[in-house]
């Protein structure tokens, strides 16, 4: 049934000799314990890495020799191997290490001990399980690269949400957030407002100071306005010189107050570019989600209409959407 088993006496002796050579060459730690968890055998990998001496450990209890092991938990785990006759496992992903062993990359990685995958195998002898073989494999590399990969993925995830120039949210992420906030506001019957705004005469500014000057203005304005917002507000670059802010759980009154504050703050602030002072203004449109709005796009449309009104009325001012029923409440 079992191929590879050598029956002949000579081959048996040879196999014994060979297997001890192999176990001592392996890059895997091997530790064999009996049913009382006393150490019966180990290989040289473990001897080298644990800097312990054979004479001191053979016959001793594993928990006395490796005092770092979580005794209660590991005893229970080993008991499952003895009782059920099945292998059990412990991965670095759940426990970075069991045995405190040094690893081969102490400089390039930030972990103190070798990350390990451990396997606990039942060793059957005439039907009874009398020993457990513990295999310890070095997973430090995998652990290290997994960490690097995760960092890179987190960075990518952030980059895919951020506008490269202004470092605020990009259009795609902003719109997804609005979509979510729209659903939340509908579900929980909460207020939701939107501010859309635009830098006044931006084309003129670009012509006068060059595109680098224009970029500097976009960056500085984003910073200034960002500092006026709450954490839950979602501030994004809608396109070109147009921006938008989603204000969850905010009725139009609060949104109008914030819009006024933005308008005044921008008007008062001065941006320095190549030793020249640049003064800019913004026009803002504000809208609150109403019963009749069937989608988040309708809300954008209303805020956009209000923004055009602010532009047409002479810029540097705030207008709110005409259609909403909230205006009377706001002025009352």
């Amino acid at each position: 049934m079992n191929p590879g088993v050598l029956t002949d006496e000579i081959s048996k002796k040879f196999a014994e000799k060979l297997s001890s050579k192999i176990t001592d060459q392996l890059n895997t730690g091997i530790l064999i314990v009996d049913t009382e968890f006393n150490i019966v055998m180990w290989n040289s990998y473990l001897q080298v890495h644990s800097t312990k001496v054979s004479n001191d450990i053979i016959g001793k209890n594993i928990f006395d020799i490796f005092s770092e092991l979580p005794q209660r938990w590991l005893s229970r785990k080993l008991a499952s191997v003895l009782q059920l006759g099945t292998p059990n496992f412990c991965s670095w992903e759940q426990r970075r290490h069991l045995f405190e062993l040094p690893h081969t990359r102490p400089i390039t990685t930030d972990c103190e001990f070798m990350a390990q995958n451990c396997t606990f195998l039942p060793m059957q002898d005439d039907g009874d399980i009398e020993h457990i073989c513990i295999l310890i494999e070095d997973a430090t590399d995998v652990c290290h690269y997994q960490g690097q990969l995760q960092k890179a993925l987190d960075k990518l995830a952030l980059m895919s949400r951020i506008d490269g120039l202004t470092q605020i949210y990009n259009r795609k992420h902003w719109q997804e957030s609005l979509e979510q906030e729209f659903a939340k506001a509908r579900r929980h019957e909460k207020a939701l407002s939107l501010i859309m705004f635009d830098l006044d005469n931006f084309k003129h500014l670009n012509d006068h100071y060059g595109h680098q000057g224009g970029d500097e203005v976009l960056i500085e304005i984003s910073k200034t306005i960002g500092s006026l917002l709450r954490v839950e507000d979602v501030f994004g670059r809608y396109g070109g010189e147009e921006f938008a802010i989603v204000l969850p759980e905010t009725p139009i009154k609060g949104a109008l107050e914030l819009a006024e504050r933005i308008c005044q703050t921008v008007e008062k602030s001065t941006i320095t570019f190549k030793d020249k002072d640049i003064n800019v203004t913004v026009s803002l449109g504000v809208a609150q989600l109403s019963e009749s709005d069937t989608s988040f796009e309708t809300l954008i449309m209303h805020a956009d209409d209000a923004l055009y009104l602010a532009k047409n009325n002479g810029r540097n001012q705030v207008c709110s959407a005409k259609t909403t029923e909230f205006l009377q409440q706001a002025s009352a």
Partner: protein
Amino acid sequence: MNQLRLTEDEQDCLQELINVAMGQASDQLARYLDSFVYLKVPSIESVDADSLATTLDQQQSAMAVVSQGFFGYEGIRGEALLVYQDEDSERLADLLGYEPDELSKDEQLIDISSILTTTFLNVFASQIENQISYSAPKLLPSRANSLSEHLDQLTFNWDLALKVNINYQVTDYSFNCNMVLLIPETAINNIKVVLNRILEEL
């Protein structure tokens, strides 16, 4: 695909083997857990490649999936997936005999999965005079679609999945999970040979 399907006799025979394996496994478990384990007769369905992801996605409510590969002689091999719903895993540490602060929730899921899979398959293997080894169990990342992604990335093409619904009741609380055994074509043929050998002996 059609010739891979089991005949009615083969299906019955397999059901019987699984019942016995599950019975013995739960007996061992009861001793290990030091508690009475009541086991319902496991229900078995064979699921084809196309519909497995759909079947499992229907029970999507924040589930956890633990996967573990197995391989034995004569090309019997595959992968076991243990699928849990959120509420299934409330008191696992208790069930396993650990203190809750000794191990994380993930570790509890992996531990019970490995125990269920290996005790069950060990008994199953001994019934068909085989011996099975296992790879380390892995918890799949808890994202939507992670199961379908995982199925796409398997190292073998599997042609048949056996979905075994396991239901354990342990004295004062119940524990549920689905065990799905993914088996490649060659392994199915080998199992069929074994099933027919057993059927002939009857």
